[in-house]
């Protein structure tokens, strides 16, 4: 079979050369498709890409019947008129039957052709698609499931916040790291040493930093009641400004505006390791009794936590950076893991409204667990019985949580 196709190609090429030498006018492109042993893709349809801001068209086609005979992919050609010249807009790999042309003008009409190509650069063109225009939409229906589930979780959070406002009390389990906050502040006061608070190294455009600063606000309120020095070096200017405002506000609301000083919060440098060098220096020189590391951290997490450990400080860390959690867990006394970091400010505030939102968050967890367990069971039943009923149910659950890119 293989030898046959090779000899076929060989004779085709030989014919091509003869044709070219005798005629002298043979164009390689046209003779290429003329002599191509490939069958073209068929039923090329082009449609507006749904759920976008316009400027994109999806092209679909039926694979060439020669798909398994060495086709290496499909070239997508486009033109503004069926009679004008077509030019290439992209390439799709073997087996692909769709391509998104994300570079269209909404005001223009387009025609598409799909060309199957094999390793020897043989090409075979499809028919031309019907005309198509791209346009923008007002709602992205691909995200409907996201809206439903997200809405459910939001609804739960808001419901429990409202419930809490009416005075309903919820049980909340203890979080060791937060139980320790008061003790840690008290200890610093007893020892007459400062408290160091590191709000992470990212800027305010990260929610972890926002969570870190809110916790700083709560902690500062407690510190304000003691004569303890607070030291907050920051690695971003906006974080510095925000932290200053927050700490000031905390001191005012604790009735200790007199004890506040702008020097509590200061900027060091935006550079990750320059900041670490400075923090390490502060640690060994000022010997804080308590260190908080709350926010977004990268490789510096362990450098700071180990230095803090060497000066015998109580260390409370909290981050949602999965890669840094192990280091904090290893080197700190308490670590707020992921979600606990975001729950911390609500816990520390003690306000019913805030605590209500945590209850709402738990509803999200129930949804997640149910989805996983039910989905897995359906999949299992399907795998065992092969029943299409379970199959379609399982697919439904999958779909409910799937994220379609386009």
């Amino acid at each position: 079979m293989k030898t046959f196709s090779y000899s076929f190609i060989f004779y085709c090429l030989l014919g091509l050369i003869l044709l070219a030498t005798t005629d002298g006018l043979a164009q390689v492109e046209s003779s290429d498709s003329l002599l191509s042993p490939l069958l073209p893709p068929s039923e090329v349809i082009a449609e507006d890409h749904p759920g976008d801001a316009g400027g994109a068209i999806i092209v679909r086609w039926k694979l060439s019947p020669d798909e398994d005979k060495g086709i290496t992919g499909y070239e997508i050609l486009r033109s503004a008129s069926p009679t004008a010249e077509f030019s290439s807009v992209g390439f799709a790999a073997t087996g692909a039957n769709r391509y998104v042309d994300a570079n269209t003008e909404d005001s223009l009409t387009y025609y598409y052709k799909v060309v199957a190509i094999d390793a020897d650069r043989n090409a075979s063109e499809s028919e031309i698609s019907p005309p198509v225009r791209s346009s923008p939409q007002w709602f992205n229906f691909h995200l409907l499931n996201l809206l439903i589930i997200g809405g459910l979780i939001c609804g739960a959070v808001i419901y429990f916040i409202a419930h809490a406002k009416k005075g309903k009390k919820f049980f909340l389990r203890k979080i060791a790291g937060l139980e320790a906050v008061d003790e840690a502040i008290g200890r610093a006061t007893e020892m007459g040493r400062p408290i160091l608070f590191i709000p992470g190294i990212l800027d305010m455009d990260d929610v972890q930093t926002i969570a870190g600063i809110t916790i700083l606000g709560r902690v500062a309120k407690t510190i304000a009641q003691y004569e303890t020095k607070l030291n907050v070096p920051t690695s971003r200017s906006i974080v510095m400004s925000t932290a200053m405002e927050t700490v000031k506000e905390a001191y005012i609301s604790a009735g200790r505006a007199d004890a506040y000083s702008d020097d509590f919060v200061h900027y060091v440098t935006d550079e990750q390791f320059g900041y670490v060098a400075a923090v390490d220096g502060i640690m060994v020189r000022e010997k804080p009794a308590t260190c908080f590391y709350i926010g977004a951290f990268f490789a510096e997490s362990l450098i700071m936590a180990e230095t803090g450990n060497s000066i015998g400080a109580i260390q409370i860390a909290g981050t949602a950076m999965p890669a840094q959690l192990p280091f904090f867990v290893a080197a700190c006394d308490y670590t707020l893991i992921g979600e606990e970091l975001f729950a911390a400010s609500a816990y520390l505030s003690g306000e019913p409204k805030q605590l209500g939102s945590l209850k709402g968050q738990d509803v999200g967890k129930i949804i997640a667990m149910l989805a996983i367990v039910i989905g897995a069971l359906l999949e299992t039943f399907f795998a065992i019985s092969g029943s299409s009923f379970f199959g379609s149910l399982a697919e439904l659950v999958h779909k409910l949580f799937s994220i379609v890119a386009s």
Partner: protein
Amino acid sequence: MEFFEKLMSIDRRVIFFFVGVALIVPFFLDIGQKIEISPEVQALYDAFMELPPGSKVLMTFDYDPPSAPELQPQAITALRLCFDRNLKVIMIGLWPMGPMQANLALGTIFSEKKYLDKEPVYGVDYVNLGYSPGNELVIQRMGSSIPATFPRDFQGTPVEEIPLMQGIVNFSNIDFVFNLSAGYPGTVEWVQFAVDRFHARMGAANTAVQAPLVYPYVHAGQLTGLSGGMKGAAEFEKLTGFIGKGTKFMLSQSFAHVIVILFIIIGNTAYFVTRGREKRS
């Protein structure tokens, strides 16, 4: 007896000292360590050796200084192999610092005596086209035109004026791609675009952390050879017969690793001995 209690709360500087020693000593050791060659590195070496003189090799430097200890020795070995076999080298980088690493590697090689007399000629034997932003899109653009993707070299010379670049249009004019990768964009993207889409022949060197993610491509035949981390560097050096820093670095790393593991064992022994004693009393 007190010994174990002391061990429990050992001064961290003792640990620092041992880690430091473990890292430094191998630099000055000249032991002919037995290095077993893994099939992946052998395949990489063979791929270079199979190229006829004058073949064009595209080397992509997709890493920055923090990963240099792992990848620089491999870059040097590969470059030396190319120059010795009279292969032409085109260097690019998908990471901004990549082309700098390429120049550093060249600097290291050209300081050797062997090349002082017969230094490869820039523009003829090798060229550095610099960095181009755009991650995997760069590879895609190179698939249609390399000169359009890299219109000028590192020093700003238009590629049309560079002899080595004459006749190079896209991957079909490149005989072998050698990718040095420390993450994204890197080997995964090169396989997906250059190999799967444009049918380039390719081998790669990766950091130890990256390598496991890339192994499947070797087994599937998409990658012709892979050298992972310092161990890969050492194997590669052994195959080329030039013992460079990769071998020393690998020793350093293994020593340090063993030290850490030893300390964990010591710590636990001390813990169990002291706890056992507490229980008895």
